[in-house]
């Protein structure tokens, strides 16, 4: 039996609802009709999750027509690489700082995103350097924010 997207999402939402219920059950201020306290808002969300999640799951079961694929296999791979690249960029900023991590990340991402399009190497290098410089000028020089210096150099 093929599991539909709605069934997967519905099940995840129900699990989230149960998790929220378990979490709020430990709060000291009790829930009462005279004063619902801090459990009310997350509790409302949890009830919503369980009801809606179950509803979405059932609707997913009832669906008869063939579902259009959310993404092809290559797309999932690209998605995974994108997320890993983001994590690597954040880690790189932690250790080597903004000035090394950002141009490298921008150049790499731009080169990868431009696959199949016509771009020249100098354009990508210029783009990476220019964006890094503009962000620095705007955030640091104009508005006085600090950007990560990197643990190895900071």
């Amino acid at each position, binding site marked *: 039996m093929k599991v539909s*997207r*709605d069934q*997967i*999402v519905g099940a*995840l*939402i129900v699990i*989230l609802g149960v998790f*929220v219920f378990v979490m*709020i059950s430990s*709060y000291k*201020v009790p829930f009462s*009709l*005279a*004063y*619902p*306290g*801090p459990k*009310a*808002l*997350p509790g*409302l*969300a949890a009830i*919503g*999750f369980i009801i*809606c*999640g179950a*509803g*979405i799951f059932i609707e997913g079961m009832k669906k008869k027509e063939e579902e259009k694929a*959310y*993404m092809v296999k290559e*797309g*999932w791979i*690209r*998605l995974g690489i*994108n*997320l890993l690249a*983001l*994590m690597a*960029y*954040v880690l790189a*900023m*932690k250790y080597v700082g*903004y000035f090394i991590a950002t141009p490298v*990340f*921008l150049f790499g*991402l*731009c080169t990868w*995103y*431009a696959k199949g*399009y016509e*771009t020249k190497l100098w354009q990508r290098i210029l*783009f990476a350097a220019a*964006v890094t410089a503009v*962000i620095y000028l705007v*955030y640091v020089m104009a508005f*006085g*924010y*600090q*950007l*990560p210096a990197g643990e190895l150099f900071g």
Partner: protein
Amino acid sequence: MAQYASYIIAQLTNPLSLILLLAGNVIGMIFGAIPGLNGTMAVMLFMPLTFGMETGPAIVFLLSLWIGGCSGGFIGSVLLGIPGSPSSVATCFDGHPMAKKGQAGRALAIGMVASCIGTAGSAIAGAFLAQTVADIAFAIGPWEYFGLCFVAITMVLAISKGNMLKGLTSACIGLLFASVGFSPIDAQARFTFDNMYLMGGLGMTTVLIGIFGVAAMVEAHAKGFDPLPEVDTGMIKGIGIKLSEIRDNIVNIIRSFLIGLGIGFLPGMGAGLSNLVAYSVAKNNSKHPETFGTGNPEGVWASECSNNASIGGAMIPMAALGIPGDSATALLIGALTIHGLEMGPMVFRNSGDIVYLMFTTVAICALVCFVLQALGMRVFPLILKVPYHFMYPALIVISLISAYVDSSSLYKCGMMIFFCIVGLIMSFGGLPQSPLILAFILGPTLESNMLKAFQNTGTISTFFTRPLSCIFMIIGIACVFSPILKAVFAKIKGKKA
């Protein structure tokens, strides 16, 4: 209002404000024009930049981004037939056929003039109406405020296309994220996992940019960029609009303006709905309804005038009640809170100068946008040629840097990646965005007013015994159950027939 004139003039003639106003309008227009981006995203991305600014310039910049984004939406609709933002969907119906017939210049000019009339007119109307609404709001208590927040969230559900359960789930996710941190009144730590970064709650920048910005860009790349169609620049010849055309369409313009203003005023609704309603009303009242969809300028007038009129409409409840009219005003309320301004009736007494600065800025932005668009009409096709492989990496880096400067911590960047994954899961499941934004921003107001109401009377019945609160509750509940109600009404109608 006149007593604030000197403050407003000082703010708007300040060189920094002028630069920010111009930059905000240009950036907003680019975001509005490019399919996949919009003015709300521009506000989201550049909001952290304003945290270190004085309140005046910060407001000028954020509003310029928003107005530029709303105003620029018609460019993609006319030239590509792809709406730059949901507020310009109806503009595609006739704007693009006009462009195909060689009337791109005229269609763009109508968009420019209609946007200017809608935005400037609604800002002026809003400035006069907001104070009256605020005076009425002094008479309402936490029960009514809770009801208003409830209506704002549920109304978005009622109009969310497709599955209502998914809209409700999205709103619940927003409420869950809003409850992270210490609870109001009882100071109970919720979902903090003893992590000091979560004690103060989830930052708006991290959550919203992660879910709606980074996730959208990463997903667009994973799915493969669709190259935008080529624009024939030869289509843009002169402005091709005369004053007499405005006179001929005056009824359509006024009607669409009022529809936009009214829909913008309703909590939770905005330009995304008003352009479609105004278009359909214009079609129904036209002498030639059969020409709609084939390049009738009346359709462009209606859509563009109404979606921009929703701006002033949405600003009235935002300023007077602290209730957002749409997603963009929800973000603005959050940004203003960071600047120490709590929107609501008291804001007119405590910071009236800021409120009128907002309305004046919107009116001026409308004129600036008009001038920029008139001067840069031939540049529009170039905006649509910006390659995604340059644009998206730059925006992703700006998003992550925004998260960093929000707290000077890379932990927030990590959290943004987490919320990016949440956004991808939401997209996978087909969960809509607007209910989450509204519920996340309104969650704290909703909860604190609910708890205050219970502290006062200790019973739920007061929500239904106070007339205004009862009306709000009934509307809210009706919105939640609207699919069931619709089915019941359809059945009754079917039986009668």
